[in-house]
């Protein structure tokens, strides 16, 4: 019985992790059709920001929840101004420019920080469930993921900002004709997406550690989740994460970690073959 509970919690944790990893990329892709291949490095930057702040004495929670998103959000705004702005509509070119950006960020962080940065231990201790112990922090992340999705939905559905964002997403020219400023919307969106990614990077730092090359481990998963999810930012990411995360965990428990990873990848390929526009290209098309 407690094994079953543990399995469920593990699935929840894996799904939450995918959601956190992908939400920033989904916002940017869903809104602006920009594929940010430096996404992994934004995560890495968030982790470094959190760890550096913590090492300088800032409270751990403030470092993870305030400093990390702020730093990466500002950086994102800068990148948007300098690079992305010139490349709207050119999907391939943005992919390449952001790939170049990712290489540059890895190089830069290596030069500045070197390779061994001490990390943060996961806070909140552990919990006994039946015969098993699990970290409370992992459960905390599940809560955070749910809050983020909920908050995103509330913002998009009920605030003016959300309305403008949705309008620009559906038809930028029309929204401009109605008086909004698309380039300002894009700038804000990119910064928000980057901030969300920074938050994820900061929150995941205690569990995965931060080295300059950690981004590479995440980019593929985030990319695959977002594209499988389809155009709808929130529901797409949520559904894709749920599906792929569950498959991954079940396969890992049943077999080995390798097969768990392969199962996730194969599932993604099959999903894309059956639903070439992603999940929300077919189902829940009008969702957020």
């Amino acid at each position: 019985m407690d094994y079953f509970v543990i399995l469920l919690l593990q699935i929840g944790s894996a799904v939450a992790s995918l959601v956190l990893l992908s939400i920033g990329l989904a916002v940017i892709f869903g809104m602006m059709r920009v594929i940010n291949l430096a996404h992994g490095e934004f995560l890495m930057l968030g982790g470094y920001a959190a760890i550096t702040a913590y090492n300088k004495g800032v409270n751990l929670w403030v470092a993870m929840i305030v400093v990390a998103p702020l730093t990466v959000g500002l950086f994102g705004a800068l990148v948007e101004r300098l690079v992305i702005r010139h490349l709207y509509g050119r999907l391939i070119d943005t992919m390449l420019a952001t790939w170049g950006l990712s290489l540059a960020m890895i190089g830069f962080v290596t030069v500045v920080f070197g390779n061994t940065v001490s990390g943060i231990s996961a806070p909140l201790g552990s919990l006994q469930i039946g015969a098993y112990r699990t970290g409370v922090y992992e459960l905390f992340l599940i809560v955070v993921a749910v809050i983020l999705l909920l908050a995103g939905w509330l913002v998009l559905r009920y605030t003016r900002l959300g309305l403008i964002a949705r309008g620009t997403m559906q038809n930028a020219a029309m929204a401009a004709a109605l008086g909004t400023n698309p380039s300002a919307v894009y700038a804000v969106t990119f910064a928000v997406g980057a901030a969300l990614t920074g938050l994820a990077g900061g929150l995941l730092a205690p569990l995965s550690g931060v080295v300059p090359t950690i981004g590479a481990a995440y980019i593929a998963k985030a990319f695959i989740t977002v594209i499988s999810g389809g155009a709808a930012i929130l529901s797409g990411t949520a559904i894709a994460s749920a599906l792929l995360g569950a498959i991954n965990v079940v396969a890992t428990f049943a077999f080995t970690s390798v097969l768990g990873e392969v199962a996730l990848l194969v599932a993604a390929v099959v999903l894309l073959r059956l639903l070439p526009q992603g999940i929300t290209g077919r189902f829940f098309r009008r969702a957020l």
Partner: protein
Amino acid sequence: MKARLLSIIGNLAVLAAGLAVLFGLPALGETYLIINSTIFAAFAILALSLALIWGYAGILCFGQAAFFGLGGYTYAVTAINMGDTTVPALLAVLVPALFAALLGYFMFWGRISDVYLGVITLTVSLIFYRFINQTAGEQWNIGDAPLGGFNGIPATPILNWPGRPGEQLAPEEIFSLTVGLLLIVYFLCKALLATSLGRIIVAIRENETRAELLGYDTRVYKLAIFVVGGALAGLSGLLFANSVFVSPTMFSLPVSGQIIIWVIVGGLGTLIGPVIGCILMQFLTNYLGTLSQIKGFGWVDPNLVLGVLLVIFVLVVPKGLTALVADVWRWSVGFLRKPRAAAPPAGERVPNP
């Protein structure tokens, strides 16, 4: 008429340069130059494969590394088992082509395109990478050949003269073979693009719906060119196996990314551009590895340099080096000519849709 003349001159120039390298380089007698050039030439064929399917057919394949690795591994495994390398060499080209046919069928008949195709090809090469990486145990032996996992397959048999298993090719001969193949492949691709297949492929790239409406089954044509690309990548893998080493990194993301960078830097939509881009980038990474070790240059992190370079290229020279050279040529020619009242602006072209 003028364009035709320029094109012929261009082809002759490439041929001349290629022959000069083919015969001139060994005469210099520097072994490391020969080995380096073999590696560069093998990669150039890989660049050509993506140049063909992306530049001319519009298929952005993020997983060209999958065919590259398949070619290398197929060659290594069959050569160790068979002894004579003639059949393995052929298989190294056929097996990736077959896999490309399967994957292409899976994707094109599902009407998958652009970004989604990129993700699927990326995922496929990742699957290969993950899978091969964990084949270190001896349950993963194919005949006599251990797949080797992360360590790769050492002691891959070098190509031997067809039918004479004892006589392996010397490094100079491998060099000649590789550069020769590069030239042949280049001109074959040019020829292919001049046939109706080539023209239809470009038409599909420009506007797939229109090509369909004109009566062409675009899926078949895309599949055909995708298979050719896969075969070329396999050939490149075979040559790489002979000059470097067969290991799972052949399937990795950085390799796929590198190929894309070569094509972009060289010039998407041309054949010679990616070849030049590939060779230049290889020189650059080579050089950066030695530069960063010299005192005072420790801050030159290769990733930093390459990344910044790529960003600058995309922003400033998005059409690549060939376009840049063409621009510079046109600018200088226009400068040298007597200034006319209404000189046509350089770079008048149909904007990229």
